[in-house]
């Protein structure tokens, strides 16, 4: 009998939560703007991050000023041109043309061979080859310099080997450095960005849409109608969080699937762990959204607060684009306010490294604490607000 009463009570609770979730979805279906933000925005972001923002440098536009016109210079140019890093755009015949091609951005880099290149190399002297790099974009410039350095080193080794073997001395390289980039073997920055992108989109769906949908009910007075019914505020909040969490999960799953086909992303770790930590992050973000809704009285204020408290920190402070290690100590402390920072670490661990809870349990605990703190703050704030109705 007791069990039966419990079951009846529980089924009424579920009934009410379902009614709220269903209503929320119906409202969302009619809200074209919100649908756009939730479903089109991620696609645009994925395209931007996947193709437009690319931290890898390929196809550097190279001009050659070859005064030597010799075997060696042609060899060097052929070697550079055969890699995907450099495209030989053209040859210059006069010193004065160098400035022109750099100024007009026709060239990102110019390589200049001296007249006496072959003579010096054949007589065992040191020859100087000059490279001129467009330094406006510092990152790209230093990458080009690095490529040039390693290309030159390779060519030097080749010359030395030839020299010694010509003279009948066997040659070997004492130490050879083999650099392998783990977790992201081809050093694709897109793969590195996808976890951050997922975090950002979950923040948009959870914090922004949940806070807006609650504040909208406050604005229209419908929340009062729900509060006079037997529906508890926890049921209301659950009813509102569930549909947006499901949408968030669906969107992140589609990002992963699309990234698999477009950028070759594979989930290296445990999918269940991925689901569990994502749900935890959604729980934390939903609570932040509920907290925002308990402070804001209008949708406009809620939107601005939600953006300021969640979206901006998740982009700027989460380590998603800008590495946290290179921030000043003071800002590094501030980065802890965003749950996305911790979720991005977890995602990279699961998606790219394939490691388990043993390497990201501190982040997981932090997310849990973050979620509970904001749930508590929202509850306190709600109690106060109710007392002032």
């Amino acid at each position, binding site marked *: 009998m007791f069990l039966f009463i419990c079951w009846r009570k529980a089924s009424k609770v579920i009934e009410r939560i379902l009614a*709220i979730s269903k*209503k929320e979805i119906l409202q969302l279906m009619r809200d074209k703007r919100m649908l756009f933000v939730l479903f089109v925005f991620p696609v645009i972001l994925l395209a931007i991050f996947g193709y437009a923002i690319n931290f890898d440098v390929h196809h550097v536009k190279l001009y050659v000023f070859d005064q030597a016109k010799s075997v060696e210079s042609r060899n060097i140019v052929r070697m550079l041109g055969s890699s995907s890093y450099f495209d030989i755009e053209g040859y210059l015949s006069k010193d004065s043309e160098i400035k022109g091609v750099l100024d007009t951005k026709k060239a990102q880099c110019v390589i200049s061979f001296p007249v006496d290149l072959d003579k010096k190399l054949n007589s065992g002297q040191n020859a100087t080859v000059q490279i001129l790099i467009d330094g406006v974009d510092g990152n790209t410039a230093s990458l080009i310099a690095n490529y040039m350095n390693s290309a030159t080193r390779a060519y030097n080794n080749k010359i030395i080997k030839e020299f010694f073997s010509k003279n009948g001395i066997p040659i070997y390289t004492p130490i050879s450095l083999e650099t392998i980039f783990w977790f992201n073997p081809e050093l694709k920055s897109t793969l590195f960005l996808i976890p951050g992108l997922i975090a950002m989109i979950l923040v948009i769906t959870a914090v922004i849409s949940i806070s807006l949908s609650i504040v909208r009910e406050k604005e229209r007075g419908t929340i009062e*109608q729900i509060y006079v019914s*037997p529906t508890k505020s926890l049921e209301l909040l659950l009813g509102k969080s569930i549909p947006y969490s499901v949408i968030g999960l669906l969107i992140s799953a589609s990002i992963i699937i699309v990234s698999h086909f477009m950028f070759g992303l594979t989930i290296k770790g445990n999918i269940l762990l991925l689901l569990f930590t994502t749900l935890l992050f959604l729980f934390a973000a939903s609570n932040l959204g509920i907290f925002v809704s308990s402070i804001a009285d209008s949708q406009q204020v809620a939107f601005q607060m939600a953006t300021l408290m969640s979206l901006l920190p998740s982009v700027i402070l989460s380590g998603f684009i800008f590495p946290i290690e290179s921030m000043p100590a003071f800002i590094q402390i501030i980065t802890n306010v965003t749950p996305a920072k911790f979720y991005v670490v977890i995602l990279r661990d699961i998606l790219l490294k394939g490691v388990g809870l043993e390497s990201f349990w501190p982040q997981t605990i932090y997310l849990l604490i973050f979620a509970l703190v904001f749930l508590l703050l929202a509850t306190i704030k709600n109690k106060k607000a109710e007392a002032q109705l």
Partner: protein
Amino acid sequence: MLSIEVNSLSKKFGKFLAVDNVSFNVNKGEVFGFLGANGAGKSTTIRMLCGILEPTSGDAKVGGFSVMNEPDKVKQKIGYMSQKFSLYNDLTVEENINFYGGVYGLFGEKLNERKKWVLKISDLKGKENLITASLPGGIKQRLALGTAVIHNPAIVFLDEPTSGVDPIARRQFWELINDISDRGTTVLVTTHYLEEAEFCNNIILINAGKLIAHGTPATLKKDYLKNKIIEIECDDPVSAMNILSKEPFVDDTSIFGNNIHLSVNEIYNSKTQISDSIKTNNKINIKRIDPIVPTLEDVFIHLLEKGK
């Protein structure tokens, strides 16, 4: 049988006493009018009776449960409709009904039966798929009432349900209120349309948080208004009113359309006192002076003036 018993209910917001020691009883199945100016404390009282606002002191029993100790049980007994007509404008008629049905735990056959009833009383049969935003005010108001009582509550609170609705829709709405009360549901309704108060079985008047009158419309007119009411029709009623308000036999003056209503005390004995007084300004031409049966409006203006 009592549906609502209110005992010395008070609510303080900081230092502001919004509801001050209010007590009254409401019988089962009656239409109970709750009157007062804006900000008098009507909505605060209703919120406390609905169990969504905790009283500072005092208590009330609604449907047999204490709002102080058992607000959750109170919520299962009541329906509530606010002046905002709390419907979702972006949902259809049927989706609104389904939602409120679900919130009150109705489903299946029970929900269908009540849905039919709501559609009937709001004249929306066959229009279930209309978006609520497109409905006219009067229909929306009836739909809001229908959804507020979808679970067939014992008691329903209507907080200024007729504000902003045209007179014909208001009349139809009152017919609906009477229907609901005939089925045994207790209706507590706030309004500031005094002609609506005449439809109520019992009325209370609240001013600045205090209860200042209580009774049926008939007894209120008899008990609270010892004075006679005289109606005067004349040119320039404002000047005439200024002259008359200084007379010792006049307690209150008020303007009703082009006429003046005078509340006169025992010093008054005949119409000539009035005409003599007005004639001190010879520009005013008197058309008519008649004693009339007081309306509730006269009673309340008198009570509120006295309260100042």
